[in-house]
C-alpha cells in the first residue's frame, strides 16, 4: 500500500525525525545531568564542565546519603506511605464505587450528588488545615493514609470500568446466596485488575511525589517523607546538615552539598522512572476513561 514518497515528504520526514530527537534529548538531559553529577566527585564537579559523563567517578555521594539516618528514615516513610495508602485507596474507593453503582442502593442519588459536588468545590486550605489539626492527624503518620484513602474522581473511573463487566456472573452468585460484599471481593476485584493497576499507579505516583503534606502537617523529622526532606534541603538549604552526618573523612574530602542533593534526587526519582514504562498501557487507558467521563 506504500506509495512512492515525494521529495517534500522526505524533507518533512527528516525535519520531523530531527525534531523528535531534539525533544527526546531535551527531555532526558536534565535527568542524565543529575545522574552524572551524582556519580562525580563533589569538589571536582564544582569546577564545572561536567555535562555528559562523570570526570572523577565516585560512589561517595551515595555512601554519604545512605549513611545519613535522616534520609534513610525519610525513604522508609515514603515507601510505607506509598504502599499503605495506595493499597487502601484502591480497595476502599473500588468498594464504595461498586456500592454507589447499584441501582437498588437506598440513598444512591444523594451519595452520588454529594460526591459530584466535591469535584467542583472544596473548603480550601485553611478549613482543611484546621480539620486535620482537630482530628489529631497533625504530626501523625495517618495524615498520609486516611485523607488519601478516597477520591471521587477515581470512583468515577472505577464505575466506568465496572459497568463493562458481564452481569451474568454477579447474578448467578446472587442466586447462590452470596452477599454484595462477597460478590465484590470474589468476583468484581479479580476481574478488575487493569483498572486497579491504573488507579494504583496514579495514587502511587501522587504519594511518592507529594511533599506538601509533609511540609504543612508534619514537623517531626522522623515522619517526613523523602520529597519533603528534599524540599527542605533545596528550598531552605539545610544540606550542610547532611554533610555533618557523613561518615568520617568523606565529608571533608570530596562531597559537597550540591553533589549530595543530586544523589538524593536520583534515588528519589529512580524507582518511579524504572516502573512507569511497564505500566504505560494502564495509565493511558485510565487517562482516557477519565477524560471521557470528565
Amino acid at each position, binding site marked *: 500500500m506504500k506509495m512512492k514518497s515525494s521529495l517534500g515528504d522526505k524533507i518533512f520526514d527528516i525535519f520531523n525525525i530531527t525534531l523528535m530527537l531534539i525533544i527526546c534529548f531535551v527531555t532526558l538531559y536534565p535527568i542524565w545531568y543529575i545522574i552524572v553529577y551524582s556519580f562525580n566527585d563533589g569538589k571536582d564537579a564544582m569546577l564545572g564542565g561536567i555535562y555528559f559523563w562523570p570526570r572523577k567517578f565516585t560512589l561517595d555521594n551515595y555512601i554519604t546519603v545512605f549513611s545519613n539516618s535522616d534520609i534513610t528514615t525519610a525513604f522508609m516513610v515514603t515507601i510505607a506511605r506509598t504502599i499503605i495508602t495506595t493499597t487502601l485507596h484502591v480497595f476502599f474507593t473500588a468498594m464504595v464505587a461498586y456500592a454507589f453503582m447499584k441501582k437498588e442502593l437506598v440513598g444512591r442519588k444523594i451519595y452520588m450528588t454529594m460526591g459530584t459536588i466535591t469535584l467542583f468545590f472544596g473548603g480550601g486550605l485553611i478549613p482543611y488545615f484546621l480539620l486535620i489539626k482537630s482530628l489529631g492527624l497533625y504530626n501523625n503518620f495517618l495524615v498520609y493514609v486516611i485523607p488519601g484513602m*478516597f477520591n471521587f474522581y477515581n470512583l468515577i473511573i472505577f464505575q466506568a470500568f465496572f459497568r463493562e463487566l458481564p452481569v451474568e456472573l454477579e447474578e448467578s452468585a446472587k442466586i447462590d446466596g452470596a452477599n454484595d460484599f462477597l460478590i465484590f471481593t470474589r468476583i468484581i476485584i479479580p476481574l478488575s485488575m487493569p483498572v486497579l493497576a491504573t488507579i494504583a499507579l496514579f495514587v502511587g505516583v501522587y504519594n511518592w511525589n507529594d*511533599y506538601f503534606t509533609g511540609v504543612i502537617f508534619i514537623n517531626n523529622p522522623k515522619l517526613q517523607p523523602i520529597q519533603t526532606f528534599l524540599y527542605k534541603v533545596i528550598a531552605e538549604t539545610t544540606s550542610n546538615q547532611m554533610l555533618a552526618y557523613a561518615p568520617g573523612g568523606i565529608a571533608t574530602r570530596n562531597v559537597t552539598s550540591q553533589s549530595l542533593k543530586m544523589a538524593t534526587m536520583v534515588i528519589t526519582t529512580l524507582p518511579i522512572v524504572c516502573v512507569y514504562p511497564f505500566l504505560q498501557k494502564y495509565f493511558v487507558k485510565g487517562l482516557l476513561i477519565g477524560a471521557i467521563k470528565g
Partner: protein
Amino acid sequence: MEIVEQTKNSSSHLSPFKRFLHKLNEQKYLQAMAIPGVIWMIIFCYIPMYGIIIAFKEYDITLGINKSPWVGLANFREFFSDERFWLIIKNTVGISFFKLLVGFPLPILFAVLLNELTSVRFKRTVQTISYLPHFISWVVLGGILMNWLSETGLINIIFTKLGILKQPITFLAEPKYFWGIAVISEVWKELGWNAIIYLAAIAGIDPELYEAATVDGAGRITKMFKITIPCISGTIAIMFILAVSGLMNSNFDQIFVLRNPLNADASDVIDIYVYKMGIEAFRFSYATAIGLFKSIIALILLLLANGVTKKLTDKSLF
C-alpha cells in the same frame, strides 16, 4: 429478577416506613460498603466546606469555628483593598494565561507530528520518553532548575558562551524571569502527558480517509492539515474550554518550590498568598476569605465553560 419481584410482593402489605426498613435490611451489606465512603466525604470534604464560615468571622483559636465572632464581609473588603490584591490577580491569571498560550497548542502539535513518524518502534520510544517528566516530582525538577538557573549554573554558562548574556544572571532572584521559568518548566514536564488524549483521538480516525486522500495525490503535510487536525478538532475544543475553566488554578506544587522572597512580586499567586496569610501569618479567617474568593471565581469559570461546551458540541460536564 424473580427474587426482586418476590421481595416486593412480600413487603407490599407493610407501611411505607417499615417497607423502607425492610429494604435497608435487605441491602445491609451494600449500605455497609457505601456508608464508609459517605462518612469519609462528610469528614474530609463537607466539614471543611462548613469551615468556610470562618471567612465571615474573626477566627479565634481559643473560641473555635462556631463561637468566633461574626464580622460580615470585612475579610473580603480587606482583601480587595490589600496593596498586593492586583499584583496577586495579575500573577495568577498571567501565569495561567501564558501556560495556556504555550502549553495548550504544543501537545497537539507534538501528537500530530508524532503520528507522522513512519517507524512504529521509534514512535513508541519517543512516546515513552515524553511521558517521563510527568513522573518526576516538582521538588526534583525544582532542584535541577535552581542548580541550572543559578549564577554559575548551566544556563548562564551556555548563554554567556553564546554571547546572549554578558553578565551571568541569578534567574530565580529576579521577578521578571519568573513567569517564563514557570511556563517553560511546566511545558517541559507535561508536553508528552498532555498529548496522550490527542494521540488517542488521532488513533480513532478512519484510515480510509487517509487512503482516499493518498489516491487523490495528497502529500503528508496536506493530509496532516486537511484530515488529522480537522478530525480531532472536537477534542481540541473540549480540552481548550476545560483549560480556560482552570485559569484560576496556578500550579501550587510548582510555584511553591520555585518561589522565594526575591521573586515574590511575580510568584505570589492566590494559592501562595492563602498559604502565606494562613499558615505563615496565622490569619486563618483572612486566608479562608481569599480562598473562597478564588473558589467562587473558579466555579463561575467552570459553569461558563460548561455552557459554552454545551452550545458548541452537545457534550457537557453536567
